[in-house]
């Protein structure tokens, strides 16, 4: 009868977990649908969101910054971690430690210190935020890529490709990157979500993005701010689902058509 008790416990834990997770969300949704003075349920709070002048401005700003942060991650963090695995085994420990630092260093000092180090062409433009977001996301993006690269026989794959006549660049682009595409996707996803949700540093530097804007308008409209939170939550889930299915879709994409392969070849 032990197994029965075990089964029951399992379901109990599952149920408790679900309640813990679902109940607050469900309550919040319910709350956000209430009309003023508890008069039935209405979509008024949600339509209020879209009536705000700054809603679209801020959401596009945040999406744009997230996209830039993702591209920057792809162009800087990905090559850096690949290079670290290929050539810098001796310094790996050190860089793993460095990659944790953004978690430890207070955002305030990052904001003040790092702003000075920004490339000139982005200083005083909102795009400086994207650079900060990349840095803040490094503990997560680095780890994701680190694990991905550790899980493939990198050295052998590189040597096999090189001995077959491929240049180093070609080897990275057509062997290594595709082999860790899953980790790259997760890293980019992390960079995007962290950028999209970043509040502290952004508001410290007096920029307005979606999260900063939410906090501001929330002070004037409690129900509306709950509706906004729900809206962002659902938005984040949608994004998650899109990225996940993009990863599955990749499995199908692996069977590239002859034309695609030719295109890739021209590119190389």
């Amino acid at each position, binding site marked *: 009868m032990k197994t029965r008790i075990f089964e029951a416990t399992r379901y109990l834990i599952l149920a408790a977990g679900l309640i813990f997770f679902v109940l607050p969300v469900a309550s919040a949704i319910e709350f956000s649908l209430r009309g003023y003075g508890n008069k039935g349920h209405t979509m008024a709070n949600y339509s209020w969101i879209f009536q705000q002048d700054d809603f679209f401005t801020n959401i596009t700003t945040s999406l744009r910054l997230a996209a830039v942060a993702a591209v920057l991650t792809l162009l800087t963090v990905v090559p850096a971690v690949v290079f670290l695995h290929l050539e810098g085994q001796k310094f790996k420990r050190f860089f793993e430690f460095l990659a944790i630092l953004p978690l430890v260093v207070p955002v305030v000092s990052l904001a003040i210190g790092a702003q000075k180090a920004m490339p000139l062409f982005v200083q005083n433009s909102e795009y400086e935020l994207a650079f900060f977001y990349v840095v803040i996301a490094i503990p997560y993006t680095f780890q994701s890529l680190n694990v991905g690269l550790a899980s493939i026989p990198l050295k052998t794959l590189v*040597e096999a490709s090189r001995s077959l006549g491929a240049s180093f660049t070609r080897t990275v682009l057509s062997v290594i990157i*595709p082999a860790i595409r899953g980790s790259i996707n997760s890293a980019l996803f992390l960079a995007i979500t962290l950028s999209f949700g970043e509040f502290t540093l952004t508001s410290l530097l007096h920029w307005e993005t979606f999260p900063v804007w939410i906090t501001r308008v929330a002070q004037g409209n409690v129900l509306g701010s709950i509706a906004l939170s729900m809206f962002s939550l659902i938005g984040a889930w949608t994004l998650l689902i899109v990225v996940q299915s993009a990863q599955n879709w990749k499995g199908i994409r692996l069977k590239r058509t002859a034309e695609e392969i030719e295109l890739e070849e021209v590119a190389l």
Partner: protein
Amino acid sequence: MSAKNLETKVSLQNLSKHYGTVAALQDFSLEMQTGEMVSLLGPSGCGKTTVLRILGGLDPHHDGQIFVDGENITGSTSDKRNMGMVFQAYSLFPNMTVIENVEYGLRVRKISPEIRRKKSMELLEMVHLSHRPDAYPNQLSGGQQQRVALARALAIAPKVLLLDEPLSALDAQVRVQIREEIRRIQLETETTTLFVTHDQEEAMSVSDRVGVMNAGQLEQIDSPSNLYNKPKSAFVASFVGVTNKISAQIEGSGRVKVFNQEIELSQNSASFGSGSAVIALVRPENIAIASDADPESKAGLIITKSFLGPMTKLGVDLGGENLVYVNLTSQEAKKIDVGSRIAVKITSEELMVANA
């Protein structure tokens, strides 16, 4: 090897390689003829992989020169050397199908899609995998993956095929099967091949010549039968084939006393002073049953008996430290049981000895 192929394809001259103070390779030289299959055999850490990697251009920091087809390629990188490599395991590109893996080198060389597909399919046929061109590496067994790796390496029509223990991750049966296939394909394509292994049976069974390595040096390179029958050193004698190690004593004038026999010392043995205690190296098939009455025979107790098909191997306690193994035809061994006593005698005309 046919006579027409007797031209030098590869010449490795005085290769040396150090890791810190460790000498991985010391003054290593080797010539390979066109179409020849040479194995490098030796215990783990003796420098086999180092030789192969230097030839493949994967290890640019070394001393010595490398010539292929008479051209000095010492300074060129691996992508310029046109050498196919097969690694121990897990070297297929995981994101590419079998056929894409095989085509890779041809794509790099900008061969047209139709031609490279045709060529790759031919190679897949050769390794018996033409029915799975669209499988991904993780859908294949270890043996199948190594066949694909072989096809991929051959696709570029390599000047030299380099195999670094390609079978060591496979189970015994598959190992034997694939090594036969490697040899068949190697002969068929007349590809000059360097095969690295620590398995002496593997090396002996598929190679034109086998080079035995020890501590970063080439001890002897010769045909398998010469290595077995005329080893140039005690190391080679004990590394190649099964060898009994029997306590013996050097007598004057180049003879060695083993059991009750005195036998000529092999010219290839190191020299020892008269009276030195040494180890005689004797093949199991060079020990035969003798009559008790023979003053040169030695009697002992049979401890083990292993049936090996046509042959039977007896383990005999002759009073030494180790059991002495004797190979008899199974017919001869029929009436001899564990626990009984027999007398034996060494039949070799000369013996190799080593330091005791």
